[in-house]
């Protein structure tokens, strides 16, 4: 049927659980803007999962996603290779990030969030900002996209938990230092909830606006189910159509953390089934 079967043009593996797929999707690429995401269903029995767009190439007609194999679907997808097809690839979805020339912008990336900061970084750099990227990995072996990030970062700071590369520590350490040292106009943080929350907490006292990209569980990704509802400043919003970008200072992270735990039991069942 038209609109299905998207070919994987390129696959790169960055760690035992992290991989990149560049997917042929010319119409999606043409419409994509920084901050947006796609919904992916890899086969007939698959779930629909949201993945933030990590890059798009309008001329080549491709969209790149970087995935962490943490559940059944993302582990299944890791078995796909170049030349294979993804059944459904829907996007671009969500609101695009507001990009303008603000001054100095810091991009925080952790875990699965390292790649998705790239389109925003590029757009903010092209809009004339001074850009600083701070990305964190567990160790040197897991570092990826250093060259790509460098291209659009005036400064690139890499942290590792064990100190095997770059600075030892968490991404919030250099963030706090920079907030003390100079005037920062915006922080964009994408990564695990705990990391985004820590970034928002670090910037709160400095009153530096901090945009986080929320990635709650979604089914349709187009505002139909309400599974992705998040509380922003006491108001219910849908991450899929109102977000995924929100002001990190007014996100109810506690609630979101709880909602992310909703399917722990089912995820276990699915993984056991997979092991059989």
């Amino acid at each position, binding site marked *: 049927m038209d609109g299905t079967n998207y070919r994987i043009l390129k696959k790169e593996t960055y760690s035992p659980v992290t991989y990149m797929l560049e997917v042929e999707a010319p119409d999606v690429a043409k419409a994509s803007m920084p901050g947006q995401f796609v919904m992916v269903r890899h086969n007939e029995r698959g779930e629909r999962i949201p993945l933030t767009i990590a890059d798009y190439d309008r001329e080549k007609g491709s969209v790149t996603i970087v995935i962490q194999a943490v559940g059944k679907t993302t582990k299944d997808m890791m078995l796909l290779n170049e030349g294979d097809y993804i059944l459904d690839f829907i996007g671009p979805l969500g609101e695009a990030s507001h990009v303008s020339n603000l001054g100095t912008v810091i991009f925080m990336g952790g875990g699965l969030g390292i790649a998705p900061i790239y389109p925003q970084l590029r757009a903010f750099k092209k809009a004339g900002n001074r850009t600083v990227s701070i990305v964190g990995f567990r160790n040197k072996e897991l570092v990826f996209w250093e060259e790509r990030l460098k291209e659009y970062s005036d400064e690139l700071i890499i942290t590792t938990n064990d100190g095997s590369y770059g600075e030892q520590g968490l991404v919030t350490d250099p963030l706090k230092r920079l907030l003390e040292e100079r005037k920062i106009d915006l922080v964009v943080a994408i990564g695990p909830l705990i990391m985004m929350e820590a970034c928002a907490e670090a910037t709160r006292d400095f009153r530096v606006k901090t945009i986080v990209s929320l990635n709650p569980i979604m089914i349709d990704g187009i505002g139909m*189910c309400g599974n992705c509802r998040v509380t922003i400043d006491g108001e219910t919003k849908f991450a899929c159509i109102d977000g995924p970008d929100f002001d990190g200072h007014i996100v109810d992270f506690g609630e979101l953390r709880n909602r992310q735990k909703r399917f722990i039991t089912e995820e276990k069942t699915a993984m056991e089934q997979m092991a059989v």
Partner: protein
Amino acid sequence: MAENKKKTIRDVSPYKTPVKEQEPQIRARNFDEVILGYNIEEARLEGSRCLQCKRPLCATGCPVGINIPAFVREIVKGDFKQAYTIITEANLFPSICGRVCPQETQCEAGCVLNKNKYEAVGIGRLERFIGDLALKESWGEFSVSRPKDIKVAIIGSGPSGLACAADLSKAGCEVVIYEALHTVGGVLIYGIPEFRLPKRIVTSEVENLRKLGVKIELNRVIGKIFTIEQLLKEKGFNAAFIGTGAGYPSPLGIPGECLNGVMSANEFLTRVNLMQGYEFPLFDTPSGMGENVVVIGCGNTAMDAARVALRMNPEKVSIIYRRSELESPARREELYHAKEEGVEFNWLTEPVEILDDGNGWVKEIGCVKTRLSEPDESGRKRAVPIENSYFVIKADTVIYALGTEANPIIRKSTAGLRTDKQGYIEVDPNTHMTSIPGVFAGGDIASDIGRFTTVIHAMKAGRKAAKAILDFCR
């Protein structure tokens, strides 16, 4: 039968020919169809109850204008293919509509037998019989006009879009349907459960559209991948029809709404129907429900949610409704089926809060009892909370089915598209044209109908718009 002698009411049975159903205790545990449909003998017997009125009120009661007495006459004669031809002049989807239309308030309400305290002719069952037979026999050649140089984009493959596409393609237009999800059918697929409308029925009747030359593109969210402006200016479409449905679930609006275990009926039905969550872990999407399910609301969607939940074998499924059974907006047949299958009902009960089990999950629903006021200006009785009547109902899953609101994607992405205060698209009631020339809208997203509409009314809007689109493009 003597054709020349006029049949009168004294010649027919006061009762409908019964239709076979799965036994309640059995069907409450499976997803197979509840109603099994007529066979040839039953259909002809039921058809023969029709008095062939000179001025048939059944046909005027049909939103899409099917020539009902004519197709029923063909059934009695045994020319089922001709019956199919007559139906499909007005409606390409008899197997769908025969199942989901509220015939009791439409065609069958007008039946002369009904007016005489007899049971109406089972028009819905007959329509379904013909539709199903046509699918089985692979009928499906339709007369199509000479190709016109008109290209129309249909946004959404729900009932309004399908009906609009059918009429336009029959009129010789080039039609492309853009569907946001990965399956064709809109609410017919994600909303209405398998046991009321099997997916294969929707897929097969939609296949007839493709035989007519309609192109369907899945996974295209218009307003995101292409804007309506792009469709008209860059993609060469002469007109566009927006039939995206309302879709956005109305919130529950009480504390505890974001606890785990609380979800909209849209979410639950999408998980189970569209994603086949009832087959988890064979299919990857879990249903998200537990053992003690409470559905809030009492419309048709609430009935669907409750009956779907029941089929997943939980300990208990109950419904909370703040008014009484009499005010329930659900079809009587749905209410009856739900009761028969074992759904429990708590009438005159209003939820006020959802209580946490201490780990972020639902434990109980705090409720108050209500009494009904005198009807207000809208003619509806309000539910008034009774003081000091607070009590709790245990639940580990709460599904709220409180209607839907306008989905904002098209509105936000289409400059100049006028919408009302609630975000529904304003249309001319006669032509269904929006504030943008060449852009039409119908079904739940259009302001002329608003909420709580039916499949067949959406189809009617799609047909009206198709006619207006032809006029516009001429």
